[in-house]
């Protein structure tokens, strides 16, 4: 297992797993941001999501391609993201690591003084 993914990175990667999420072809910055907010159940800054997308792409866990811009975007292109095979493996590893971590624990955890 390479780098262990953080919770935020996992949320961003999970938003790109198709067809589980509804994003589909809408897997661009703003759509992903909405999905991540929904998954984490809290307000997330756009800057953090774009920075994470860049980092994941540098790690080779996702790929992106440019699509032509529309009039509403003043002709500016749209960058669409897709999860790579390495990204799926990283998510599986993260899930397996978390499962291992909780193996043998009785759920939910209780505090015993």
């Amino acid at each position: 297992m390479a780098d262990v993914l953080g919770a935020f990175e996992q949320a961003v990667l999970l938003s790109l797993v198709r067809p589980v999420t509804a994003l589909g072809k809408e897997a661009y910055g703003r759509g992903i941001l909405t999905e991540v907010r929904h998954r984490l159940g809290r307000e997330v800054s756009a800057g953090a999501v774009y920075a994470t997308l860049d980092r994941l792409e540098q790690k080779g866990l996702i790929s992106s391609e440019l699509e032509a811009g529309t009039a509403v975007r003043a002709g500016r292109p749209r960058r669409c993201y897709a999860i790579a095979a390495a990204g799926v493996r990283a998510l599986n590893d993260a899930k397996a690591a978390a499962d291992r971590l909780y193996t043998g624990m009785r759920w939910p955890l209780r505090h015993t003084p």
Partner: protein
Amino acid sequence: MLRALLEPRNRDTVTGDLLEEYREIVVPERGRFGARIWYIREVASFVTTRRLVKVSIVWLREDAMFDRLARTSWVWLVAGSAALAGLLVALIRSNFGPPAGLGLFIAISMMLGASAMIATRARPDARSLWRIGLVCGTLVTLVLVIRLLFEVLDPVDPVERFLAQARDDYSEFNYPRRWIPAAAVALILMGGGLHAARRTARVGMGTLAALTASVLGSLVYVTLVALGNTLPLGPQDPLGNSPRYLQFFGNVPTMLIPILAMFSAVLGTIGALFGRALSCLGAKTAHN
């Protein structure tokens, strides 16, 4: 600002995403005012210390527009700081006591440098600002020096002046050596603002040009007075501290710098408004 904070590959895509959401979702939901607030918040979310440091380094290292602009402004700031350091040394050497308003005008000089970096958009802007500031600043210094020479060569008794000012029929216009230099400085600053705004079609540039001229002009003048005071040019006072003519001027007139800067902002803006109007008029005539 947002474009400066983003990596070049993301500039168009991220601003496009924001624009799309702004137009299609946020404006219909929150109205134009609410959407603007939303937009500012979104842009603010990209501001992190790491990004700001990165942007600063890129500006200083890349051979780009901002890089050249930053270098030009830094030269300006270094020159201003050197002048201030010289002034400080002269003040200490001449034993003038606490330098009134020194901190204030240091702050103004720094603010001016920072404003120039923000208000100017390209290297030619900084260059023309510097040129106009230098010419008008030199003229301001000249006027102030001429006024000083008048006071040195033909001093007026301060008690006599005080009594004259207390009379009901007192008018500044009866003392041309007081109002003519003031009017000349005002005209120079307005002219600088007018010229800069006419060239660039931007009022802000006019204000900035007048501010530059006033700070440069008064800084040079104050430095000259401080340096002149260290020389045995005039009769010494009983304590042997400084020549009398400079005492008459309230020692080194450091407060002149912030006061003139404040006036120059107003006068420069007035001149700049005329300059902008002339620029529009010129463009309209050329169009017809």
